[in-house]
């Protein structure tokens, strides 16, 4: 049997990889890609805790589903914003979109 720790460590690693992507990529779409990885890592955790905890309690799966919904919403709005910004400023480099400063 696979112990719980393997799943958790996999999730932590995937989360860190996603975090790196979100922090370091220049392209806004790539940042969103990183965020997707982080959300998936969360889902692995949720599913693992469901399986390794009390199976009859569906909380883990339910919240994984809700994470799906949040991810879909995030991508829809995020990409819409990216496209809108691209139309306005002709760039999707996150560092170039820095009007909101002093």
């Amino acid at each position, binding site marked *: *049997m*696979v*112990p*719980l720790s*393997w*799943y958790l*460590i*996999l999730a*932590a690693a*995937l*989360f*860190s*990889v996603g*975090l*790196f*992507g979100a*922090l*370091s*990529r*220049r392209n806004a*779409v*790539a940042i969103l*890609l*990183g965020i*997707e*990885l982080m959300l998936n890592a969360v*889902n*692995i955790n949720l*599913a*693992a805790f469901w*399986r*390794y905890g009390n*199976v*009859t309690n*569906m*909380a883990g*799966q*339910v*919240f994984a*589903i809700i994470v*799906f*919904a*949040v*991810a*879909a*919403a*995030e*991508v*829809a*709005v995020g*990409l*819409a914003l*990216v*496209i*809108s910004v*691209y*139309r306005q400023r002709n760039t*999707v480099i*996150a*560092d170039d979109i820095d009007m909101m400063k002093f």
Partner: protein
Amino acid sequence: MTAEQIIFLLVAFFTLGSGFMVVTTRNLIHAALWLIATLFGVAVIFALLDAGFLAVVQVVVYIGAIAILFIFAVMLTRKDMRDQGPQMNRNWWFGALISVLTFGGLYFLLQGWNGLSKTAADIPSGFDAVGELGNALVSPNAYVLPFEVASVLLVAALVGAVYVAFNWK
């Protein structure tokens, strides 16, 4: 080492490797395709966790919709199909440091937790996880409220996305 562990390790390395490719590949289309590979890996992880419904929904929602959207977005936001300039920002080393620190911190915290090496109990026979999940999602005693909130969120996101991305002439 049992067969299941071997499968898990293979899938985990595949998932992590393709995840790593997602954040490092220069070509964004390739990054999106690597993301799909990662998502497949996660779907298999779900299947290994006996969460078949999640696995299928993962494929439907992530690969069928989200990843496709990403590819569309990448194609829509490029002046040409080449990748110019660096793909990492100036502080990428700092981001890497923070990521490593995060992983280290999480690993450290997990080490101190006594439930870490737990193994899974067998799923009781006749237990219909999909049915239970469906009941849990609509039962007022369970999670109907989060479920409804999620649907409201989706509607709001839908309207917002259409509004933001609409090409006002």
